């Protein structure tokens, strides 16, 4: 193996690792705030990529309907509750907050001709995609996780598995069994010494770094970020301070959906994505998150990059055993974690 191969593999591993790192951050965030091991994280990746692909093909993505239907369900439930308690003033906010964006996007996309939709500027298409997929996070939290927010983490995990299966099935209905690739952000490549960096690779590295920086600022400097951190540290304490755990849950799932959809949009020009591609990508992010003990953001991100590099190098040396090597990594990490960290039994009711 010469230096060039070493560098090429490293670059490939970093690119994938950057995506895994984003997903690992989302997983840590959701787990810290809601105690849900958020398996459906990968589905947001697939939904993001495939929604963008559908828009670029001039088709109305099925995810819009999902957002609208979930929005209606939330409006019916929350609206019903508001009516029952006679709190009519909240109604407009409930309707607008849950159904507004999906309906506007549905009108916008179905109003456009197929050619006009396909010919939209790429940033606009990406915005549309994010606008469709991101609301799914809070809506799903409201419908699926909020009613059982106080359940044990095992129950939450089982529900997350069920949600993962449901979303995969819906993905097949929306997008079909075949894969899609989207247009790259910009064509061409950059030459640095022996390395040929595709522009898309640079986009991925840049966007991941930027997103991590934004998340850092969000958590350190904004009220919402601090509220999320407070909830993660101590739910009861945060509630006593007037922080709504429901709001925190919705916000964390919204962020997770945003990170997932953006990752999907970033990788889809590099590789073909399928309705069920997200799971494996999410799982590798999960290995990274485990390395971080589902608690530490920097360690999780580094762990995810490590997963990406390991994957890349093992695909060169022993391609048949690549997945085995990557997922076996979790065993020594768990052993080391359980030996070094002080274990606290979760309180069960």
């Amino acid at each position: 193996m010469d230096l060039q191969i070493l560098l090429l593999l490293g670059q490939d591993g970093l690119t994938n690792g950057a995506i895994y790192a984003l997903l690992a951050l989302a997983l840590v965030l959701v787990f810290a705030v809601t105690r849900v091991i958020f398996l459906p994280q990968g589905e947001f990746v697939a939904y993001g990529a495939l929604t963008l692909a559908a828009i670029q093909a001039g088709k109305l993505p099925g995810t819009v309907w999902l957002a609208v239907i979930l929005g209606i369900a939330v409006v019916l439930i929350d609206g019903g509750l508001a009516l029952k308690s006679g709190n009519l003033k909240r109604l407009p906010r409930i309707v607008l907050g849950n159904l507004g964006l999906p309906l506007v996007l549905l009108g916008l996309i179905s109003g456009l001709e197929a050619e006009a939709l396909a010919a939209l500027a790429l940033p606009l298409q990406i915005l549309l995609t994010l606008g469709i997929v991101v609301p799914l996070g809070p809506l799903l939290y409201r419908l699926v996780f909020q009613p059982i927010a106080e359940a044990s983490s095992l129950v939450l995990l089982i529900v997350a598995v069920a949600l993962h299966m449901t979303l995969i099935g819906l993905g097949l209905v929306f997008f079909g069994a075949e894969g899609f690739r989207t247009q790259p952000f910009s064509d061409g490549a950059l030459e640095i010494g022996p390395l040929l960096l595709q522009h898309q690779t640079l986009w991925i590295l840049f966007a991941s770094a930027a997103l991590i920086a934004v998340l850092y600022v969000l958590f350190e400097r904004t009220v919402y970020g601090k509220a999320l951190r407070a909830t993660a540290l101590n739910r009861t304490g945060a509630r006593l301070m007037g922080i709504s755990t429901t709001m925190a849950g919705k916000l964390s799932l919204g962020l997770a959906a945003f990170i997932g959809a953006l990752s999907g949009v970033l990788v889809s020009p590099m590789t073909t994505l399928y309705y069920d591609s997200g799971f494996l990508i999410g799982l590798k992010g999960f290995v990274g998150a485990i390395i971080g003990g589902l608690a530490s953001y920097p360690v999780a991100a580094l762990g995810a990059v490590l997963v990406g590099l390991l994957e890349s190098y093992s695909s060169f040396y022993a391609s048949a055993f690549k997945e085995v090597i990557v997922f076996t990594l979790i065993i020594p990490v768990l052993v080391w974690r359980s030996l070094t960290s002080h274990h606290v039994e979760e309180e069960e009711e």
Partner: protein
Amino acid sequence: MSRKTLIAALLPLATGLAAVPAWADINVGVSLAATGPAASLGIPEKNSIALLPTTVAGQKVNYIVLDDATDSTTAVKNIKKLISENKVDLVIGSSTTPSSLAMMDVAVENETPMISMAGSAIVVEPMDAKRHWVFKSAQNDAHMATAIVEHMTNNNVHSVAFIGFADAYGQGWFKEFAKIAEARKIKIVANESYQRNDTSVTGQTLKILAAKPDAVLVGAAGTPAVLPQKTLKEKGYKGAIYQTHGVANADFLRVGGKDVEGALLPVGPMMVAEQLPNDNPVKKSALEYVKKYEGVHGKGSISSFGGHAWDAGVLLSNAIPAALKKAQPGTKEFRKALRDAIEGSKNLPAAHGIFNMTPQDHQGFDQRARVMVKVENGTWKLIK
């Protein structure tokens, strides 16, 4: 006997009477992978079943289609249900080799003929008491592998690198290909594998490039086969790239775009039916199916997998008249007669080739069932 047990005893009888249609109908059970990882095979197959004739030799034919979600356990459940509840005379299924193998035992137990649409030869070989009841409408992988090796020898390819799925499809192809290539003195310089869902094959590609092969064979099915070819081109590989017939659908061209230009692959003749010379014996029967399918689903929508389902129907329709002479549908005798009639199919033109079944060969295709094509300007171009 209490009233409850009486009802329990009578209920199946009553529903059974209601479920069994007039004795004249022929019931065909279909189990295919309409969802799950092999959905891109199962969906066109399902569409093609819908195009099959509903009356053959004056008898009504009912098709009962079930989805096995690319899961062999579900496939077994399906065939049990089809046989015990729907009293089917024949089973078509499934799309994949593992599911077909699993269904086989149930078919044999109930002496029901079965036509599989899967690719691997092990579904019908080696012939034994079990496979006595099993037929296969899709070409064996070996048919296709010989076409590739033949093309390679004709074009002075001496060393080949293989990259394929890390599953039965990729492994099966490697085994078939290696066997034939070795006999023709073609050296295999690398054998790499990757997963259907992988987002990168850079490592494998670099290793292949380091081995400097004359050609690369990608042993993958459907759109995931684009990734190795795209990466090879990106890294500057200039040699020939061969694909397998598993990629022969419009989605491969759509996803691959200009990255898969120049790919060489063997396909069933129906994929290029219109380009076939007029004296090709398969042209007429292939065009018949292509026109029917594209008439419903639009131009360019055909895939070889749909053709396998259609060909299963061709075998069935051809066998029904002979079987009807011997017994009534719904009986054990009819199923046996149907099996014998399918085994007796001679010079039967279908979408993918000409069936010539023998007691030893339950696939029945010969070299007329494949042609080599090249991807040119986003379409399949027949290599003369």
